[in-house]
């Protein structure tokens, strides 16, 4: 297995540090060789910075990639945005000679050069392909039995020609990862639909962005689940903090708990909710916390 280095990005360490902790606990428990990646910056966020100035987006992403190259470790991302930026940039810089030359001209100003020696991974596809659901099932100490609305998020699987993770219309790998924790993935309408946060919508056109999240939440509520599980802190923020904002803007109270996959896996591997920062989410659902407590006691 190629050694890894963990790219934190912005939203996880600076808004949802529980996901950072949960990821580190899970990686250690599964005995995966993954170090910190000091000196990294914003990936930079694909929807905004790629919209404003593509050469800058590519140069900053290129710098982050050289940090991983220096360590001779593949970069592990835990955010669809970071994955989108770094995997796309890595692909472009490896394949397109002209872009590589122009980006390296910028990077030479800070004594760096993109070499193209590493890969960029996302924790969901890494766990599925390189660890495998069987090994995860073996490591599970507390099968959770939760009814879960799985939210893939867009940039984990699209653009599909670059990701190579199979069907973007009806993928299954993330559902299988959730099921490996002893939970059930509940099908629901518009399951694959965008949360509405990307492309600068959450920062620039907040209310319309929330209308998209509200639609998703309404479909998830109808399906009747214990929680939503995502693979991206920006989707996480939109679906978690967004519920409070939706209550203010649209007067609708959903109160659906939201977990990142690292937190769900952390629970199944036997870590208490408080260690995983689940109590730090905006949505605090007493029934859900009670259910987690009971499932821990039952085991």
């Amino acid at each position: 297995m190629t050694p890894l280095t963990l790219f934190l990005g912005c939203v996880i360490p600076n808004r949802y540090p529980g996901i950072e902790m949960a990821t580190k606990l899970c990686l250690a428990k599964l005995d995966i060789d993954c170090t910190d990646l000091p000196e990294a910056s914003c990936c930079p966020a694909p929807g905004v910075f790629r919209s404003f100035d593509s050469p800058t987006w590519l140069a900053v992403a290129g710098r982050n990639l050289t940090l991983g190259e220096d360590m001779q470790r593949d970069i592990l991302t835990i955010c669809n945005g970071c994955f989108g930026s770094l995997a796309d940039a890595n692909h472009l810089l490896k394949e397109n000679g002209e872009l590589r030359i122009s980006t390296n001209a910028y990077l030479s100003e800070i004594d760096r050069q993109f070499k193209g020696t590493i890969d960029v991974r996302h924790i969901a596809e890494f766990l599925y392909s390189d660890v495998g659901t069987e090994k995860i099932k073996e490591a599970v100490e507390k099968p959770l039995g939760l009814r879960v609305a799985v939210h893939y998020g867009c940039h984990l699987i699209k653009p599909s020609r670059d990701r190579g993770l199979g069907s973007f219309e009806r993928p299954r790998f993330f559902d299988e990862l959730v099921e490996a924790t002893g939970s059930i993935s509940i099908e629901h309408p518009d399951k694959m639909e965008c949360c509405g946060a990307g492309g600068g919508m959450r920062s620039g056109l907040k209310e319309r962005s929330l209308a998209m999240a509200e639609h998703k939440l309404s479909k998830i509520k109808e399906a009747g689940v214990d929680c939503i599980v995502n693979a991206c802190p920006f989707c996480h923020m939109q679906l978690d903090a967004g519920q409070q904002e939706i209550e203010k803007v649209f007067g609708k109270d959903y109160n659906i708990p939201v977990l990142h996959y690292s937190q769900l896996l952390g629970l199944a591997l036997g870590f208490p909710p408080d260690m995983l920062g689940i109590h730090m989410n905006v949505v605090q659902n007493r029934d859900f916390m009670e259910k987690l407590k009971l499932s821990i006691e039952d085991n």
Partner: protein
Amino acid sequence: MDDWEQFISNRKYYITEKMIMKENNVQEQLKEAGIDILKCMQCGMCSGSCPSGRHTSLNVRRLIRHAIRSQDVLEDEELWMCTTCYNCQERCPRCIDIVDAILKIRSIAAHKGIILPEHKQVIKLLLEYGHAVPIDEANMKKREELGLERFPETVHKDIEALNEVKKLLNVCKLADIIDQ
């Protein structure tokens, strides 16, 4: 006059149609980037697949037609209603890289000063902190409560690394977009 029209009319640098044609031909820049929107047959698969279009006025089919016909597309509010989910690009029967085209048109607009104030703020944060979402006091406390270090292992903890990022952003002239 709605907010967007007000915003457009208030822009510091008013660009005449002629100037845009000369300096910023959208078609030519897309062609240079290897994106051929002229292949579009206006079938509407894109707008039918667009999750934003269910909740906003974004009509991708119309937006692409606008880009084919006129430089005015740079001032089209709908440019900024795309979440970049890629559904349209995945399903386009003519294999047009629609999202890549939208990103490219946005960047031409941004370089002409057509950019939302909230997005300028995101640029300022990156320029100052190296993070588009920087740490705050409440989250430093959360980190400590979890047993993590107060500052994450990123440019937040390493001033030399932050200076390196700032130098790179300076070389790339990112600040030009907000200084207009």
